[in-house]
C-alpha cells in the first residue's frame, strides 16, 4: 500500500539526479589526473570537483535513498499510511535547500575542504551550514520512522514488527547517533571559526569527532542494501528468507558495534593513544560478524530459491538460479564486490597492515568497491524493484537493466583494482595530478589509465540507469499490485522482545560510544595549547 508515491519518487529522483552529477565529476577527475588527460592547467578545479563529488556521494545521495526507501518500507511493510507527511516534505526541502546552499561556495572555490572538512582548513560558512541542513532534514526522517513504528505498535500490541521496518528503524537510529560526531565538530568547532567568531581550532580534536561519524556512516549507507538483501532479493527470485531472527540479530549487531570503531581512521594520527586505537580495532573486527552472518543467511536463502526450482547437488543448484533476473544479477555482483572490499577492510582494520596503505589510493579503491560497488548496485536494484509500484508502469526492458548492472560491475572492478595496486606502491590519494615523467612514478601510469577507463564505464552505466528510470515513467500503465517483502521459511508468530524492539540496543550503542570516545575526547578537550590558527580556503 504505497500512498505517498510522490514523496518517495521525489526522494529517489533527487537522489539519482545528484548522483548523476557527482558521477560525472568523478569520471572527469579520473580523466584529468590520468596520463591520458594531463591538460588541466588549474589543479584548484580538481579539488572543487572532489569536494562536490564527496559531499554529494557521502551525504546527499545515500541519505535520500535511505529516506525514500524508508518511507516506502514504512507504508508497505506496516500497511499503514505514513504519519507526518507534511514533516516528511519539510525534511525533503531542507535537504534541497541545504544542498544548494553548500554547492554554491564549492563551485566558487571557497569551500575546497573535501567532504571530510580537514580543519584547520576552513571554507565558506555556507558550505557547512548547507551540510547541517541536509543532516537536520534527515533527522526529521529518523523521527518519522520512529513515530510510524510506534503508531503501528499501538495498533498491533505484541505483534512481530515486520523485518523490513525493524531494520529500517535500526538504520534510522544508527544514523541519528552516527551523525552526532560530525554535528559536534561542525557546531562546536568549525562553524564558529568559519563565521569569524573564533580564529583558532583544535585540529586533532576535530579529527576525533569526525572519526565518530566517518566509519559508522558507511553502515548507514549499507542499511538499504542489507534490507534489500534480506527482504527483497528472496522474494524477487522466488525464495524465502532462511532465518528471520538471524536477520534481526545482524541489524542489531550493526546498531551496537558499528559505532565505536571510527578511530581506526586515526591509526596514524598523533592525538590518540595506542590503547583506544586497539579497542577500536577490536570492535572493527567485531563488525565483520553481522556481514558474515548475512552472507550465510542470504546464500542459504538463495539456495532455497534454487532448490525450489529443481536445483540439486552440492553446488549444482547455483546453475538453476534465475540469472536473467536483474535482482539475482545485482545480488551476485554486490556479493563479489563486498567480498573483495570486505577483505580489503580486514586489512585496513589492524594498525600493522594499515600502516602500509594508510591514505594511499588503496583506501580510495577499498571504499569505492564497498560503497560505490556493493552498496550502490543494490540501490539500483531497489529502484528497479520499486519503480513499477511508484509509477504504476512496468519496467519492460530487462535486457537493458542487465546491461546496466554488468557495466557497473565491470566499471567498478576496472576502476578499483588498479587503485588497490598503486596504493600498495605508495601512491597518495587526493592528488590533482602526478608527474608521470618521474621515473619513480612512471610505472603507475598504466594503472591510473585503467582506472580512468573504468570511470567512463561507470559513467555510461549511470547514464543508462537514469535513462531506464526515465523511460519507465512513460511506459504503458500496468498495476503492479501491493509492494511485498520476502517471507521467512519460518515466518515468526512471536518474536522475543529483545529482537522486536530497539531500546536496549540503542542504549548499548550510546553507552559503547561514550566509553570508547568519551575519555579521548575529554582529555583532548582539556589539553591546553593544541588549538591552532585557522587557514581560510580561497582567502587572499
Amino acid at each position: 500500500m504505497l500512498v505517498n508515491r510522490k514523496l518517495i519518487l521525489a526522494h529517489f529522483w533527487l537522489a539519482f539526479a545528484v548522483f548523476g552529477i557527482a558521477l560525472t565529476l568523478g569520471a572527469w577527475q579520473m580523466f584529468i589526473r590520468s596520463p591520458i588527460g594531463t591538460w588541466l592547467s588549474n589543479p584548484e578545479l580538481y579539488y572543487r570537483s572532489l569536494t562536490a563529488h564527496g559531499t554529494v556521494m557521502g551525504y546527499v545521495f545515500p541519505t535520500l535513498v535511505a529516506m525514500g526507501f524508508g518511507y516506502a518500507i514504512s507504508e508497505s511493510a506496516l500497511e499503514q499510511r505514513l504519519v507526518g507527511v507534511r514533516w516528511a516534505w519539510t525534511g525533503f526541502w531542507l535537504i534541497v535547500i541545504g544542498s544548494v546552499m553548500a554547492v554554491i561556495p564549492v563551485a566558487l572555490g571557497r569551500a575546497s575542504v573535501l567532504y571530510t572538512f580537514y580543519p584547520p582548513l576552513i571554507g565558506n560558512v555556507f558550505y557547512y551550514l548547507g551540510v547541517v541542513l541536509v543532516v537536520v532534514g534527515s533527522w526529521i526522517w529518523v523521527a518519522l520512522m520512529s513515530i510510524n513504528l510506534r503508531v503501528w505498535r499501538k495498533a498491533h500490541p505484541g505483534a512481530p514488527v515486520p523485518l523490513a521496518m525493524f531494520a529500517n528503524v535500526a538504520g534510522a537510529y544508527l544514523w541519528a547517533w552516527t551523525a552526532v560526531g560530525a554535528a559536534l565538530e561542525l557546531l562546536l568547532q568549525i562553524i564558529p571559526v568559519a563565521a569569524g567568531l573564533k580564529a583558532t581550532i583544535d585540529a586533532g580534536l576535530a579529527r576525533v569527532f569526525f572519526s565518530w561519524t566517518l566509519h559508522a556512516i558507511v553502515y548507514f549507507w549499507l542499511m538499504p542494501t542489507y534490507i534489500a538483501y534480506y527482504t527483497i532479493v528472496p522474494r524477487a527470485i522466488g525464495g524465502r528468507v532462511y532465518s528471520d531472527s538471524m536477520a534481526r540479530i545482524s541489524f542489531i549487531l550493526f546498531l551496537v558495534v558499528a559505532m565505536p570503531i571510527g578511530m581506526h581512521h586515526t591509526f596514524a594520527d598523533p592525538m590518540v593513544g595506542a590503547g583506544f586505537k586497539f579497542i577500536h580495532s577490536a570492535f572493527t573486527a567485531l563488525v565483520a560478524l553481522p556481514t558474515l552472518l548475512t552472507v550465510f543467511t542470504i546464500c542459504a536463502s538463495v539456495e532455497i530459491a534454487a532448490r525450489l526450482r529443481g536445483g540439486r547437488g552440492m553446488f549444482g543448484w547455483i546453475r538453476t538460479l534465475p540469472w536473467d533476473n536483474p535482482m539475482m544479477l545485482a545480488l551476485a555482483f554486490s556479493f563479489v564486490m563486498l567480498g573483495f572490499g570486505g577483505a580489503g577492510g580486514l586489512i585496513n582494520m589492524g594498525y600493522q597492515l594499515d600502516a602500509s596503505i594508510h591514505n594511499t589510493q588503496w583506501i580510495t579503491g577499498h571504499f569505492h568497491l564497498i560503497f560505490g560497488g556493493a552498496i550502490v548496485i543494490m540501490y539500483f536494484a531497489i529502484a528497479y524493484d520499486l519503480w513499477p509500484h511508484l509509477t504504476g508502469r512496468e519496467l519492460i526492458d530487462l535486457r537493458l537493466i542487465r546491461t546496466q548492472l554488468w557495466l557497473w560491475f565491470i566499471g567498478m572492478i576496472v576502476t578499483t583494482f588498479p587503485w588497490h595496486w598503486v596504493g600498495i606502491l605508495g601512491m597518495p590519494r587526493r592528488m590533482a595530478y602526478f608527474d608521470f615523467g618521474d621515473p619513480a612514478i612512471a610505472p603507475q601510469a598504466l594503472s591510473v589509465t585503467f582506472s580512468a577507463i573504468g570511470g567512463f564505464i561507470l559513467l555510461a552505466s549511470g547514464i543508462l540507469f537514469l535513462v531506464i528510470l526515465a523511460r519507465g515513467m512513460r511506459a504503458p500503465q500496468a498495476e503492479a499490485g501491493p509492494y511485498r517483502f520476502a517471507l521467512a521459511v519460518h515466518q515468526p508468530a512471536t518474536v522475543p522482545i529483545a529482537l522486536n524492539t530497539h531500546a536496549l540496543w540503542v542504549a548499548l550503542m550510546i553507552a559503547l560510544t561514550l566509553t570508547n570516545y568519551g575519555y579521548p575526547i575529554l582529555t583532548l578537550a582539556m589539553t591546553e595549547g593544541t588549538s591552532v590558527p585557522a587557514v581560510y580556503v580561497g582567502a587572499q
Partner: protein
Amino acid sequence: MSTEETHGNGSASAEVAARVERRWATIAVIIIVMMALLAAFAGIHRATMPQPRVETTDPSRIHLSGEFVESNLGSVLEANGNVTVRAIGQQYSFTPACIVVPVDTPITLRATSADVVHGILIQGTNINTMLVPGYISEQLMRFARTGDYLMPCQEFCSFGHEGMWGKVKVIDKIEFAGRAKGGGRLSCVGQ
C-alpha cells in the same frame, strides 16, 4: 545442507536451520577472534604499535624555540648510534625536503605540522604517519636497503597538495657517520 529443511515440517526443519546457523556463527566468531589474535601477536611480537604517548606543541611558536626550530631539523646521530630525524610539514613542502639516513640503523622520526594537516608516507615502506598541527608524531623506522625513496604528503592540505613531495636518501652507515662527525643536523637538500 539438504532440500528437506526447506519444505520439511515445521519444528524439524527449524531445528536443522538453527543447528546450521549456530555452526556458521561459531565459524564466524572464530575467524574474528583469530584476526584479533593475529593483530595482537604482530603488535606485541614485532613491536609495531602506534605511538603510545600524546605529545603536543604550539605550531605558532615552533619556528622560534624548542625542538622544531629550523637549526634543529634534519638527521642527527645520537650517542647510542641511533638516529633521530626531525621534520616539519607546511603548505606545501617538508623541511628538510630531502631526508638523509643511514641504512640498517634504528631511526626515530619526530615530526609536526606548522599549519594544516599533512601526512608523511615513504613509498615502498610501511612508514606512514599523519602530521597534525599542535601534536608531535613519532615513528620508529629502519631501512634495509640503501637508495632513494619518494616521500609524498598523503593528506590533502589545500590547493598545492599535489606538489608536496619530499625525498628520503638512505646511505651507507660509514658514509653517514663521516658526515655526522661534527654533530650537526644533516639533510640532502640540494644534492
